[in-house]
C-alpha cells in the first residue's frame, strides 16, 4: 500500500500535478485507504463538524470544571468588546476557549488532533464560516485538509505532548488550522504547506506543563494562542511569503526537539508552569480534595 501521507511535499506536488486542492486529494486517498465511499467519509466528517459547533456553543454556558480551576472565561471573552482583534480573530479566540473549557468540564468534543488542543481547529474554521461566509461543505473540506497535515505530522513526528511537548499538540493543531484556513481562502497547496511551517516554527520547543496534571492550566489559554498563530501563519502564506525551511524539515526538527526535551517538560507536570509555587499549591489542594472525595465514596 502506498503511504500517501509520508510527507507534505509529496502531497503538495501531487495536488499541483492533478490541479486539485489538498482536501480533494486527501478525500480521494482516504476513500481508497479506508475502502469506503467518498460520500460516507463526507457524512462522517460532517458529523464531527456538528459536534465541534455544539461544543463551541455549550462551552459558552456558565460551568466549572470538576477541579474548579476553569470555566466561564470563553463567555467572558465573547461579552468583551474586542479592542485589538478583528471579528475573525475575536470569534476564533472565543470559540477556541469555549471548546477547550467545555473539554475541561467533561463536555463532548472532537479531539483535533488531541483533546488538549481541541479548540484550535474548530475555533479557526467556525469563525471563517461565520464571518467570511464559508459554507459547511467548505468547512468539511477544511477538516480534510487539516487531517492530511495531522497525518503527516503523526507519521514523521508526534501528536502527543508526552513525546513532543505542547508543540506536538497545540502546535500541530495550529499547523492544521493554518493550512485549512489557507485553502478555504483560495490559497494554493504550496501556500498551505508554508502556513504549516510558519505555525510549527512559532511553537518549536513549546513545553507541555499541565498544572496538577490536568488539561486546564495553561492548556485552555494555549488553545487561544494556537488559533491566533494559525491565523497569522495563514495570513503570511496568503500574502505569498514562503518559509525559508520546507515544512517537512520543520516537522522533522520538531521530532528532534521533542527527543532532546527533558521529560520534565513533556506532560509529567514536573517542570515549566506546573513547577511554579502557585501550581504546586494548587496540586496539593486538589490532592487533599481527592483524598476526601475517595473516602466519601459509596462502597
Amino acid at each position, binding site marked *: 500500500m502506498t503511504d500517501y501521507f509520508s510527507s507534505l511535499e509529496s502531497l503538495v506536488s501531487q495536488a499541483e500535478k492533478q490541479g486539485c486542492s489538498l482536501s480533494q486529494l486527501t478525500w480521494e486517498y482516504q476513500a481508497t485507504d479506508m475502502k469506503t465511499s467518498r460520500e460516507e467519509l463526507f457524512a462522517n466528517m460532517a458529523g464531527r463538524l456538528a459536534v465541534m459547533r455544539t461544543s463551541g456553543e455549550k462551552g459558552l454556558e456558565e460551568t466549572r*470544571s470538576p*477541579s474548579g480551576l476553569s470555566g466561564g472565561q470563553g463567555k467572558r471573552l465573547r461579552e468583551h468588546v474586542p479592542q485589538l482583534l478583528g471579528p475573525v480573530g475575536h470569534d476564533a479566540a472565543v470559540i477556541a476557549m469555549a471548546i477547550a473549557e467545555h473539554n475541561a468540564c467533561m463536555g463532548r468534543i472532537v479531539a483535533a488532533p488531541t483533546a488538549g488542543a481541541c479548540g484550535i481547529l474548530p475555533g479557526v474554521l467556525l469563525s471563517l464560516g461565520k464571518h467570511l461566509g464559508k459554507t459547511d461543505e467548505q468547512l468539511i473540506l477544511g477538516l480534510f485538509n487539516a487531517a492530511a497535515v495531522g497525518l503527516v505530522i503523526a507519521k514523521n513526528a508526534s501528536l502527543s505532548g508526552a513525546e513532543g511537548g505542547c508543540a506536538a499538540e497545540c502546535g500541530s493543531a495550529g499547523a492544521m488550522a493554518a493550512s485549512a484556513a489557507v485553502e478555504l481562502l483560495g490559497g494554493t497547496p504550496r501556500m498551505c504547506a508554508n502556513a504549516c511551517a510558519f505555525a510549527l516554527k512559532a511553537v518549536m520547543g513549546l513545553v507541555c506543563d499541565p498544572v496538577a496534571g490536568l488539561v486546564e492550566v495553561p492548556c485552555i489559554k494555549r488553545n487561544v494562542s494556537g488559533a491566533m498563530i494559525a491565523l497569522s501563519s495563514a495570513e503570511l502564506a496568503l500574502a505569498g511569503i514562503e518559509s525559508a525551511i520546507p515544512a517537512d524539515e520543520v516537522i522533522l526538527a520538531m521530532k528532534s526537539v521533542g527527543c532532546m526535551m527533558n521529560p520534565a517538560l513533556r506532560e509529567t507536570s514536573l517542570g515549566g508552569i506546573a513547577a511554579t509555587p502557585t501550581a504546586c499549591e494548587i496540586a496539593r489542594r486538589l490532592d487533599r480534595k481527592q483524598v476526601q472525595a475517595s473516602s466519601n465514596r459509596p462502597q
Partner: protein
Amino acid sequence: MKPWKYYEKGTSRTPMPGFMVIGGTLPLEWRDNTQTVMNMFDIIGPVMVGPSSSHTAGASRAGLVARKLLGEEPAEAEITLFGSFAKTCAGHGVDRAVIGGILGFSLDDLRLRTAFEEAEKAGLSYRVSHSELAMSHPNTVAIRLKGRSGDTIRVTVCSVGGGAIKVTEIDGGQVELTAQYATTVVFNNDRAGAVAAVTACFAQHNINIAFMRVYRNYEGKDAIMVFETDQLVGADIVEQLQRMPNIRKAVSISPFQS
C-alpha cells in the same frame, strides 16, 4: 463477593497477588501488530467526553473492554487506579469514565459524567481504590468484575495514548489486546487440538484471522486465545465455540473506532 486484596491510596505493602504473573508465559506471536494504520478520523477525532483522551476516553474504553470480556451484565466492580490515573483521577474523571465503560457507555456518552449515579440505577456496586505501586505504564487500571451469574474476570488495562488501550493481563495471564481489530477471546483448557478447533470453525464461517496469540500460565491448565480478525465474529459463531469441548467461554469484541 469474596473480598480480595486491594490497596487504599497511600499504602504500598505487597503487590496484589491476583495480578502477579506466576510462572513464565510464552506468548506465541505470528506478527507484531502494534503498528496500525492511522486514518483521518484518528486525527479529527475521536468524538469523546473530555478532558483527556488518555485519562477519560482511554479509561472508559478500559471499563468497556472489561465488560466485554466478562460477557454479561456486571453486578460488582472493583477498580484499582495506578500511577497518573490515580494521581489525576478527580480532575480527569478517571473513576467515572471507568465505571461508565463498565456500564457499557461509549467514550462519547455524556452519561460518563454521572456514572456514579448511573451505576446505582443499574444496580452495579463498585469500589475504587488508588494505588501508588509503580506499574509498567503510568496510566494503568486493574478491574475485577463479577457478573449477574457469578462469573468473574480480572483484567489489567493500560491507556497508551490518544484513547488507545492495551489489555495486558486477563485472569492473571499476560496477554496483549488492543481491540483495534475485531477481536475474539477464547478461554479454554490447555489441550491439544483446542486451537485447531477454533481456527477450523473460523474457516468454516469465512472469518480471516489477521493475528493470533495463545497464552497459558501452566501446561494443561487455563489458557487464553486471542484472535484478531478481518470480520466481526457473530453471536452465532461465539455460541458454536462455547459448545466445543475444553472451551469455557468465548467473547467477541467489535473494534474501537475513532
